[in-house]
């Protein structure tokens, strides 16, 4: 699917948290620096629009674009994307969940 | 208008409710506890909320939240509890949130705490000192009015006798205008821009002008001083000795002054009703005519400093009060007697052309 991101280089503080979370590994940090002296990410070919970089970024640098083909999630504002409140409400989560890392003890619910 | 027999605490609380106070939080501490008790019964009757908090600091926090939402809110405590609340007091003033606080003091040793700020930073509370249950009711209404008018906390100073003495009270609902709208109040951003209410910065989003915020807190002091001074005076036109006293002990002084005058002594009195802003001009004028000033207060000498500032050395200023406690420690002790005050007046009365 066609996808890309835009990156606000001046907001970036060079933390590089986006680089390892990108599944196709299409983000690399620049050699150049922005006006504050931070390196920023550059995008290579192969972005899938998975949104992970945008979600982990502490500085709101990313906008994510995807091709709107049949069956793909609707654009912003429809409230039906994965992780939206509507989607969360439809999940069945009344009881304690195991830790996602598989570690840590599970405290008993009273 | 209804006349009722009520103790000072209850009169103050009832007047607050009539002034549309709808939130109270407090912690039991003698001699302020009766206000908490009265509010526990009365506030739910008028759709308000009374919280017995788990600590004084949590109580003032709850009042902060309610008042910050635009609801008239009140808290009462005693010196030690007021000490605990000082951080919040200072920052309530910085956030310009109107609250009415009451210190039912043990003695009068909390004058500095009340008028010098007690907490950190540059701020003042407006401080009112009633001397009777009637005046407690009247000043409670005034307190809410002034707190809203100036967006500044107001503190009412009472004491053990004021709290527990029952007197005839006439309530005057509607003595002041109904509360005005509060555009600074936090209510949820319905059909308007979102705002912040903070002691640390302005109300507008995307702004960090803390200097302007703090300057605004003190910028209104001059206007408050000009407009809100209140004092009761007597016999100043011929007084050679003027006695200054505040609160319930002020009534003892008034009576002692009457007895002194009956003995031929030319004595007058000034009873500050606002401790801040202090009636500096009233006392200064009295000092131009009188030969000496005496200050009666149940502490080691606190208001006397404000009196000295007003007098500026023109005439002698005598402290004729002192620390006065009985075994209870609640500040009603042997010095609070008309006979004793009269003797002290006689001690310092300026005789034949000079200071005593």
């Amino acid at each position, binding site marked *: 699917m066609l996808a890309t991101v*835009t990156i606000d280089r001046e907001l970036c503080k060079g933390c590089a948290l986006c680089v390892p979370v990108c599944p196709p590994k299409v983000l690399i940090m620049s050699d150049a620096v922005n006006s504050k002296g*931070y390196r920023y990410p550059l995008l290579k070919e192969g972005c899938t629009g998975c949104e992970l970089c945008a979600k982990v970024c502490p500085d709101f640098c990313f906008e994510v674009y995807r091709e709107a083909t049949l069956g793909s999630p609707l654009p912003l504002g429809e409230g039906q994307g994965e992780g939206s409140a509507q989607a969360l409400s439809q999940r069945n989560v009344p009881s304690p969940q195991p830790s996602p890392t598989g570690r840590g003890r599970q405290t008993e619910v009273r | 208008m209804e006349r009722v027999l009520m103790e000072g605490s209850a009169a103050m609380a009832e007047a607050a409710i009539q002034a549309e106070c709808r*939130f109270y939080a407090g912690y039991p501490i003698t001699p302020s506890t009766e206000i908490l008790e009265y509010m526990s019964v009365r506030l739910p009757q008028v759709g308000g909320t009374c919280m017995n908090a788990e600590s004084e600091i949590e109580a003032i926090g709850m009042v902060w939240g309610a008042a910050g939402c635009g609801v008239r809110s009140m808290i009462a405590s005693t010196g030690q509890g007021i000490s605990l609340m000082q951080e919040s007091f200072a920052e309530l003033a910085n956030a310009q949130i109107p609250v009415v606080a009451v210190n039912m003091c043990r003695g009068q040793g909390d004058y500095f705490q009340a008028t010098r700020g007690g907490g950190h930073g540059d701020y003042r509370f407006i401080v009112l000192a009633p001397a009777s249950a009637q005046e407690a009711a009247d000043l409670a209404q005034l307190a809410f009015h002034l707190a809203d008018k100036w967006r500044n906390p107001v503190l009412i100073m009472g004491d053990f006798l004021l709290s527990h003495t029952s007197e005839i009270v006439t309530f005057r609902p509607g003595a002041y205008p109904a509360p005005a709208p509060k555009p600074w109040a936090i209510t949820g951003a319905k059909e308007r821009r979102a705002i912040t209410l903070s*002691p640390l910065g302005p109300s507008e989003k995307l702004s960090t002008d803390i200097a302007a915020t703090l300057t605004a807190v003190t910028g209104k002091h001059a206007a408050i001083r000009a407009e809100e001074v209140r004092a009761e005076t007597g016999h100043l036109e011929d007084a050679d000795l003027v006695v200054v006293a505040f609160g319930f002990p002020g009534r003892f002084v008034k009576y002692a002054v009457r007895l002194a005058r009956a003995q031929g002594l030319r004595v007058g009195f000034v009873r500050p009703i606002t401790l801040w802003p202090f009636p500096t001009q009233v006392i200064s004028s009295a000092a131009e005519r009188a030969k000496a000033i005496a200050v009666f207060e149940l502490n080691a000498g606190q208001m006397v400093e404000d009196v000295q500032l007003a007098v500026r050395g023109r005439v002698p200023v005598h402290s004729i009060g002192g620390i006065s406690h009985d075994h209870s420690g609640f500040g009603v002790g042997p010095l609070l007697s008309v006979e004793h005050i009269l003797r002290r007046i006689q001690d310092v009365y300026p005789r034949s052309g000079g200071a005593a």
Partner: protein
Amino acid sequence: MSHPTNREPATVNRGPATVDPEPGTTNPGPGTRDQKPGTKNQDPQTTGRSLTKVFDKPDLLLKGEHSLCPGCGEPVALRIILELIQDLELRERTICVAGIGCYTAFPMIMDVDVMQALHGRAPSVATGVKRVRPDAFVFTMQGDGDMISEGLQEVLHSAARGEQFTAIVFNNAVFGETGGHMTAATVLGQHTKTTVGGRDRTRHGNPIKISELVAQLDGTAYVARAAVHTPSALKLTKQYLHDAFRSQLDGKGFSLVEILTMCPTDWFVPPDQGPAFLETHLTPTYPLGVIKAD
């Protein structure tokens, strides 16, 4: 937007997102070069294909720029909170009561009403707010130093009373704003400027697990612990916050969500090591999961 807003125009520093292809490599595919924000890219070779924006910072975030450190987890948590308020259409009812910490920089960029409280004191202020405005959606935003050190009494009493607000704590196990000092949540072995060489049980005592503590109190309806250091943890954060918000909206009682956040500056690690440090140093003491749900 239908309501008046403080929102600034979008920043305009978005440069081209692709690197120039090296000589000899194939050209980047259609749609990925010179992408202008907000535009749809029509490629004449593949008729009918277009790009639509699917992710942006929340509308309730007035500005992307903030003064917090590189790699800080708190803005990530803030994003999720604001997304949820937006999704649940709670903006007009929301009152946030903020504590004192690095996140004190947030109220000015949040498009909801915020009441700024003192260090540790947000729960009592939130109590007053919710008692006089029971229809408001009220949450506190606090750090571990604020809630678990200074304000432990306040959150415990609010929970026991079953106050109908949601307390949110950003737990990075350190006093960040003051420059890296021990809080009641600092973990054993963690180096800070006041636990030099590592927190030691004998000299510095033991960390307090606020979620487990609060969960023991009657009056608490929902308690969960999440984190923002991995994509799957982010999902938990959003789920748990959603469930806590629902718990308040359904009038079930006090709710608490503890969100472990990265503080590489005061963990004394490079920003990109924050997530790993959180996983190895914090989650053993603070396991993720729902601790109580009524």
